[in-house]
């Protein structure tokens, strides 16, 4: 049985369709990513999956339970790390875990023995009595992750788990998520960080405008949707150079500001040509998920 099955999901707000027929299925034990620009419908999809809002149409089965009809029962086996920190500021770290466990009907005697282990896992050993206000952003995130594990969930839903964190804190979260996967947890994660998705997810869906535009393993998506090599060309003259010369050496060229992105199967002829243009700086690299993302969702700003 799939931990989460979503089919033909639709949800509109004020006549604007935020989720427009989205469907996907998680495999047990995998980390699945929902990747999309701001406003793509990621958070709304998660809210529908948790039964916190009723979709206009579509079917959701969460850990075997139909949602929203039996959302409460389903949430017994789910852990959630929300996009915005909502730890209880009036409580210590340990109290946050105890109080949260009670929402699952757990007795204090069941929760207390787990606190040390959960804080250990979150890299917060010895912080039982720490005031929430004294914790850094990264520590709060990790405590939120620990809180999501208090009921030993089958499936973790993480909404942009590393947004706003510094690189050290992000790496620590990633390492912990990988550990959870080794323990057999299934993870659904939304993000707009490509490196995060590429590192963590076995499979991911790129969504835009509430629709899925591509789905697959990160490497497969790169292989399927984009040329293998990218040569980035920088400089004042890059746009005019790109307009005249780039097409001859590239399968596809995109210009953004003073940078031309040349997508090529073989970079050698282009690099040889560019040697004659000392005013242009170049960066030759393999194509990555961000290239796929930008190709499929466009380069315009989404605010």
């Amino acid at each position, binding site marked *: 049985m799939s931990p989460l099955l979503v089919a033909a999901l639709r949800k509109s707000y004020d006549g604007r369709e935020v989720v427009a027929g989205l469907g996907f299925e998680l495999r047990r034990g995998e980390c699945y990513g929902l990747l999309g620009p701001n406003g793509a419908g990621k958070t709304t999809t998660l809210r529908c999956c948790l039964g916190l809002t009723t979709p206009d149409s579509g079917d959701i089965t969460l850990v075997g339970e139909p949602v929203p009809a039996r959302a409460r029962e389903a949430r017994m086996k789910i852990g959630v790390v929300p996009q915005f920190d909502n730890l*209880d500021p009036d*409580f210590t770290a340990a109290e946050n875990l105890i*109080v*949260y466990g*009670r*929402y*699952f*009907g757990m007795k204090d005697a069941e929760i207390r023995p787990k606190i040390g282990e959960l804080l250990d896992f979150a890299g917060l050993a010895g912080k039982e009595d720490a005031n929430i206000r004294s914790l850094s952003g990264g520590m709060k995130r990790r405590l939120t992750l620990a809180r999501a594990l208090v009921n030993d969930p089958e499936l973790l839903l993480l909404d942009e788990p590393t947004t706003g964190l510094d690189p050290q804190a992000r790496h620590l979260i990633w390492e912990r998520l990988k550990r959870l996967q080794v323990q057999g947890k299934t993870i659904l994660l939304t993000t707009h960080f490509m490196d995060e998705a590429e590192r963590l997810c076995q499979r991911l869906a790129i969504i835009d405008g509430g629709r899925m535009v591509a789905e697959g393993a990160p490497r497969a998506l790169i292989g399927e949707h984009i040329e293998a090599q990218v040569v980035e060309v920088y400089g004042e003259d890059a746009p005019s150079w790109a307009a005249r010369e780039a097409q001859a050496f590239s399968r596809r060229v995109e210009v953004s500001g003073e940078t031309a992105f040349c997508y090529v199967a073989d970079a050698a002829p282009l690099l040889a040509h560019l040697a004659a243009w000392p005013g242009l700086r170049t960066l030759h690299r393999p194509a990555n998920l961000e290239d796929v993302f930008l190709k499929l969702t466009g380069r315009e700003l989404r605010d």
Partner: protein
Amino acid sequence: MKLATHPSPSIRAFAVWRRNFLVWKKLAIPSLLGNLADPMIYLFGLGYGLGGLLPQVGGVSYIAFLAAGTVCASTMNAASFEALYSAFSRMHVQRTWEAIMNAPVTLEDVMAGELLWAAAKATLAGTAILIVIAALGLIASPLALWALPVIFLTGLAFAALGLIVTALAPSYDFFMYYFTLFISPMVLLSGVFFPTDQLPPLVQAVAAWLPLTHAVALVRPLLFGEIPAGIAGHVTALLAVAAIAFWIALTLIRRRLLK
């Protein structure tokens, strides 16, 4: 409209209640003193200061008359503050409700927990004043103990009314309207400071519909050692306000949070 029915709250509401209780426990003494200070200033200031100038009011000394009004008004205030400012912090500022609803707890549970918590805190505030009043010798007989369930019921009614305002509030400033336009006039019209028969007949007719009027009408005779007249009507009125207001608050809050 699907909004006409709500799933019924479950036992999980108690976990929400306990969460608020745990926060309160950390600051119990200052919180209780805060609940006592304001009404005591009114009771002593007006009761002795103004009361010294007055002949008997309603057949008793003014401070004895004022005692029941003070109990009811502070119960109302405690319930209102909890259901407005504190609940709004948890709903909007701290996003505590959001966190709770990611667990197997529904919005109905959260609201029921908040309602019962605000009523409990109001009961504590009202009871604390009742104890002070008893110590001052302003209570006639053990019949006054029946004021305790009335205090709880008053707390429920005003907690439910407060949750409606919280459901509509864009920010803390909004609560000023509720206090200035509803709570303050009600205190003057409900027989807290003077008997309602001092009011013009038209205003009396309005006052008869106010929940605080019913609370005062029950508590005052009880403190004097008398059985209140029209108990069933007053209790029904308070219960009806609590039930209808809670239903409206739930409908509004569902629209706000579960859209």
